[in-house]
């Protein structure tokens, strides 16, 4: 199965220097970017909510699909290289596999949110830890990282 690097190898690259803005919160969507090297900081209302280092991470897709302004500012922490589809809608319309990959990423992040919330209700009721829910949801919405896979080779069948 092709991965996102295979599917975007025809796209031009853009280079960012440290501190350069990729996406400005409130801006109009349209493009999609795929991170090749470097790391990007995600800020909402000026507050950092995430740093993305995972190559293959996609940016701009949520606002594109929803037709809404960008919900966060994304800027380079260090020199970055990204593949750039200026017309993200055209890319998705022409490549079903690319669309599937993006949908899978979005579905994964939705699963993070829904399982978190469902468990909260069971664990909590009205306890103070609910105060962090808004912050956690903002971070989950923006989270891009290699999928966490549990397990130890040293203790593959642990008693604890």
């Amino acid at each position, binding site marked *: 199965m092709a991965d996102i690097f295979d599917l975007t190898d025809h796209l031009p690259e853009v280079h960012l220097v440290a501190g350069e803005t990729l996406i400005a919160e409130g801006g109009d969507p349209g493009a999609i970017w795929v991170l090749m090297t470097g790391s990007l900081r995600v800020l909402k209302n000026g507050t950092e909510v995430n*740093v993305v280092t995972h190559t293959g991470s996609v940016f701009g897709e949520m606002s594109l699909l929803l037709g809404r302004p960008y919900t966060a500012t994304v800027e380079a922490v260090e020199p970055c290289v990204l593949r750039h589809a200026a017309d993200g809608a055209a890319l998705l319309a022409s490549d079903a596999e690319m669309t599937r990959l993006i949908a899978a990423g979005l579905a*994964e992040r939705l*699963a*993070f*949110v829904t*399982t*978190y919330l*469902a*468990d*909260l209700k069971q*664990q*909590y009721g009205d*306890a*103070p*830890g609910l105060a*962090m829910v808004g*912050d*956690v949801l903002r*971070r*989950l919405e923006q*989270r891009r*990282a*290699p*999928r*966490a*896979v*549990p*397990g*130890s*080779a*040293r*203790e593959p069948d*642990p*008693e*604890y």
Partner: protein
Amino acid sequence: MRILLVSDLHYALRQFDFVVDASTDHDLVVIAGDHLDIGSSVELDAQIVVVMRYFELIASASTVVVSSGNHDLTGHDANGERAAVWLDEVRRGGIPTDGDSLRISDDTLVTICPWWDGPAGRAAVEAHLSADAERRPARWIWVYHWPPVDSPTSWTGSKFYGDPDLLGWIERFAPDIVLTGHVHQPPFTPAGSWCDRIGDTWVFNPGRQIGAIPTRIEIDLGDGTASWSSLAGQEQVDLRVPPGA
């Protein structure tokens, strides 16, 4: 210095809440691994975000160090061995974690050991301990998830379930205090315990209980005492008692 040791919170959010509230009363908070719960219905990636937020809250009130446990492994490191790779994000946030050393004042060094999962990881832990041994101050504290074998701190109630490598390193390097977790039962079982003395080294394991309040050990280096608290009661030892006394 007052130290709070908890471990094996396993995404029990009320227990994390307790640690947040208790952190203001301690100079150092140590969370010795198994922050995540691989059996939970909550996706691990979501747990990670929540737990990291708790670490930030605790760090805003005290000095906090966190180590990995076997439940915290989420990917592979540069050597291809399983590791708690998400803790790199924690380190970037300014919280000492796996592989770090923290100097507190002039007289205390805290060495934070990961759950190592292969020969390269084991070698890295040994190198870290060796390097810190060269610069140990008056007080040397380790954070290491799995308690040593043949110690009541690793007694399950029917057998020792401990780490032989840690026992060897304790005997070789003789740290002052080792803070562990992993095995949940020792404080609650006959022949098990929340504390042990190996040579001059104190070893602690708070165990684990269900409910809103975690088992915990509070070490007061000024008074020279360590106390364990749980729903089953509270116990205390005098750290200044000579070994074998």
